[in-house]
């Protein structure tokens, strides 16, 4: 294979790495081939905010020297990846999609980025996202929206819209995203790629710009289930820099791909298939469930009775945590300060007013309101109590099943501008994804065919805490099943 005959949009970790290892193509040539795609086509997609050529080419050259010597290559040797711009990359601009951090240069690497590079990955650049990861359409980016590569009049989903679009468009073999209420899984579904949200604590959050600390997860977006499994093996594990990262052994997730699914018990929660679900999505998912039944899985109807309360709980907990996390953006330490303010209080206010976009302000106000004297019990405490009930729903379901299967989104990708005037309509789009964050269980979104307009449909698998192995095994079986 040479550069000309290479189908860049079909590359996987294995195929990219083996080209570099066999020296059919150098890591530098592979990176340049991706940069050339980005420069010719990302103008209409908008997935990248910053290209990190220096970083990428230095790493690619290092990999090529290893390959020339015939040294054993690390698991992601030469694989072109890109990073959601909420993760710190030392010496590179890191914006979180916010005006506030337009000129911010990250002083250190996020642990997940450090691990990717230690495994040989080549980081091409930083990916567009909703400001501080707050949004479901990527239209809250302070810089420019991302367009869905499958239909550029539509949103790619959010908040990791750039991460999903870059994989779908052939700009990177894999990307990192973050998921606080669906922000990896929903854009994966809208763009027709695979998105994996690991268990809370499975992947270090060190160097992730915090949105809601008890809900934030770092995870991969890829073209195949196996690639997500491989990336998870690389980025997972206890990190002394993140006290919430779990001290739980990391599995060989890629070896789950191809394992027998016969005998697995799959729960179908009726609350996820009710009113509001696009009938085409329902049919597509039911066909996959039939396929699993034929493969020997036991399909069990289960109930997660508090599901309808998940969105209210989520928008209290997430905004309360965000209002605290975003207090640090005060004009003192992080690049942006409103000019010519006379007093400290004035400087705080004006800097925050100029630095934050409308959705971020809305969430800070809502979160501050929910935490304020007189409302704390009615809103924040109440939401935390219902969070316990949501957790019990899953514990009960998992006594009788190994995993549950649900839709990812109630509809396929919507049009740009369609929901920007109605925040509640935008929030309801997260109805099938937020609960996993509140409960902390792992979830994956993978392609499940297209609707009549050719737009991708996603299917979601949710598993037990720290049981990514079963989630990946099932996801791989579903992926094979549709080919």
């Amino acid at each position, binding site marked *: 294979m040479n550069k000309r005959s290479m189908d860049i949009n079909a590359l996987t970790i294995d195929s990219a790495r083996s080209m570099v290892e066999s020296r059919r193509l150098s890591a530098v040539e592979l990176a340049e081939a991706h940069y050339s795609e980005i420069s010719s086509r990302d103008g209409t997609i908008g997935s990248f905010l910053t290209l990190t050529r220096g970083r990428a080419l230095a790493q690619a050259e290092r990999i090529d020297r290893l390959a020339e010597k015939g040294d054993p290559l690390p698991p992601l040797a030469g694989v072109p990846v890109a990073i959601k711009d909420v993760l710190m990359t030392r010496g590179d601009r890191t914006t979180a999609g916010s005006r506030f951090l337009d*000129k911010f240069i990250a*002083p*250190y690497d996020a642990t997940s980025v450090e691990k990717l590079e230690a495994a040989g990955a080549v980081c091409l650049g930083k990916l567009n996202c909703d400001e501080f990861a707050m949004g479901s359409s990527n239209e809250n980016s302070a810089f420019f929206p991302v367009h869905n590569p499958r239909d550029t009049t539509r949103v790619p989903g959010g908040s990791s819209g750039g991460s999903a679009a870059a994989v779908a468009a052939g700009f990177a073999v894999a990307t990192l995203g973050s998921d606080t209420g669906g922000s990896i899984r929903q854009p994966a579904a809208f763009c027709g790629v695979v998105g994996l949200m690991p*268990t*809370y*604590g499975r992947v270090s959050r060190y160097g992730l710009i915090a949105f809601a600390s*008890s809900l934030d997860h770092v995870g991969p977006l890829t073209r195949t289930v196996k690639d997500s499994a491989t990336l998870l093996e690389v980025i997972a594990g*206890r990190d002394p820099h993140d*006290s*919430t990262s779990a*001290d739980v052994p990391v599995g060989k997730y890629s070896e789950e791909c191809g394992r027998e699914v016969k005998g697995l018990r799959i729960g179908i929660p009726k609350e996820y298939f009710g009113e509001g679900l696009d009938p085409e999505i329902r049919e597509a998912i039911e066909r996959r469930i039939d396929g699993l039944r034929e493969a020997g899985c036991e399909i069990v109807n289960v109930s997660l009775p508090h599901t309808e*309360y998940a969105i*209210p*709980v989520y*928008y*209290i907990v997430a905004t309360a945590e965000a*209002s605290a996390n975003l207090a640090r953006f*005060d*004009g*003192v*330490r*992080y*690049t*942006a*300060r409103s000019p010519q*303010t*006379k*007093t*400290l209080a*004035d*400087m*705080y*206010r*004006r800097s*925050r*007013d100029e630095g*934050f976009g409308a959705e971020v*302000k*809305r969430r*800070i*106000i*809502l979160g501050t*309101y929910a935490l*304020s004297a007189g409302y704390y019990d*009615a809103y924040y*405490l*109440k939401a*935390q*109590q*219902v*969070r*316990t*009930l949501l*957790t019990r729903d899953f514990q009960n379901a998992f006594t009788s099943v190994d995993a549950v299967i649900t839709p990812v989104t109630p509809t396929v990708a919507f049009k740009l501008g369609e929901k920007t005037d*109605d*925040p*509640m309509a935008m*929030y309801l789009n997260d109805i099938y994804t937020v609960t996993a964050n509140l409960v*902390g269980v792992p979830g994956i979104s993978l392609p499940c065919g297209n609707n009549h307009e050719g737009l991708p449909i996603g299917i979601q698998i949710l598993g037990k*805490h720290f049981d990514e192995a079963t989630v990946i095994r099932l996801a791989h079986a579903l992926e094979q099943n549709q080919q």
Partner: protein
Amino acid sequence: MKVTEKDVAYVADLANLELTPDESTRMVADLNSILGHIDKLNELDTSNVEPLAEVVSAFASAERHGSQKFAYAQRPDEVKPGLSRAVALFNAPDTDGTCFKVPKVIER
């Protein structure tokens, strides 16, 4: 519970945000729409339900009890290198090379 302009002004003050009159009007409408949906939580009796703030101690160390639930987060208290002063100050809008500089804190 209806949120008023006055409530929004009070909360904006707590959050150190300055809202224009237009932003404030829009915020009142948005907050009432969102809180209207959130009021659904009152359908549930949670008087005997413990609140859940985080999931790690509940699941990553479910078999442990009391303070042992958080044993994974403990480490020896050793001095290790951190960010240098120059790196820590690098992104600040105003410094004197040693400290962050801010406008006057105390007004006469």
